[in-house]
């Protein structure tokens, strides 16, 4: 038997001891709750709720479309709030929250446009029209993508965050424009259904929508925590890389100042 341990084995053991991921007990519990809510959402949305009198089975698309649209708004609103806090406090946590919320906003925005287009084809006979609600939604999605792009343009991490945060301040006002676009302009899109005091749907259909919102909210929260931790890790890696680069440069400088003294001898 050899005394020398296999390095790959030791590495694997170390990884097993210290799990390297963004999960925690809290996210495990939240994840399980989200999975259970998703199962309930699918059952209510596709099986238990009845077809609509006018839309038929197409109403089942709205059990996805409405929750993801609200989470799209939430992502954009949270980005604005975190951007404002970053500009005031300059705390890396707010910056990480802003980028996490913006990325989730892009994902849920893409889903809003996708599910809306799929619903529009059989209902309006077109996937897309330059309607006020659709156009303002697309504009909000473009702004969110722009927010993420601006972060990458500036090579200094805090410079990029600051520029992007200024753009981030425009996101929530745009959410208001998207939401009220159906009231302010003539629109093909229906007016508010659930975000009013007297919802225009009821019974199992309202339950399906509410379960969808709860399930979507849990998935959003779970994803936001993981994405926030990824952003936090990115900041730490950047800091470690910068420290290492500064140390290497200092060592180089010390070497070059020592060299001439060593030459005459």
């Amino acid at each position, binding site marked *: 038997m050899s005394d020398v341990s296999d390095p790959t084995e030791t590495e694997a053991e170390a990884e097993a001891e210290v799990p390297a991921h963004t999960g925690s007990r809290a996210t495990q519990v939240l994840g399980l709750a989200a999975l259970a809510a998703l199962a309930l959402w699918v059952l209510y949305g596709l099986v238990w709720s009845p077809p609509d009198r006018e839309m038929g089975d197409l109403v089942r698309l709205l059990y996805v479309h409405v929750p993801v649209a609200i989470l799209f708004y939430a992502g954009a609103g949270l980005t604005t709030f975190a951007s404002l806090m970053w500009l005031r406090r300059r705390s890396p946590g707010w910056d990480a929250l802003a980028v996490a919320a913006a990325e989730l906003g892009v994902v849920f925005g893409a889903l809003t446009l996708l599910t809306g287009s799929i619903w529009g084809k059989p209902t309006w006979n077109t996937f897309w029209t330059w309607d006020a609600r659709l156009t303002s939604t697309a504009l909000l999605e473009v702004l969110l993508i722009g927010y993420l792009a601006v972060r990458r343009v500036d090579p200094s991490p805090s410079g990029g965050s600051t520029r992007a945060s200024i753009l981030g301040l425009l996101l929530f006002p745009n959410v208001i424009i998207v939401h009220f676009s159906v009231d302010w302009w003539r629109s093909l899109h229906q007016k508010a259904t659930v975000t009013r005091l007297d919802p225009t749907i009821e019974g199992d259909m309202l339950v399906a929508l509410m379960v969808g919102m709860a399930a979507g909210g849990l998935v959003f929260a779970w994803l936001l925590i993981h994405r926030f931790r990824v952003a936090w890790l*990115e900041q730490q890696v950047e800091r470690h890389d910068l420290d290492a680069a500064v140390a290497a440069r200092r060592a180089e400088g010390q070497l070059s100042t020592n060299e001439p003294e060593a030459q005459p001898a």
Partner: protein
Amino acid sequence: MSAVVHVVAMSDGGYVAAGWVGAVGLVGAYVLVTLRRGRRLSRRVPEGDRRWS
């Protein structure tokens, strides 16, 4: 021609399936990408800097 259009045209169930599968698929893909990014970055950061572990 109308028969061809009838065959190609998607039923309501097809649109519903496309919407649900697209939504679950996109979110599922994003979950996988986020978890993989987290794992990759976690290995480069000392345990003390991972406040949640």
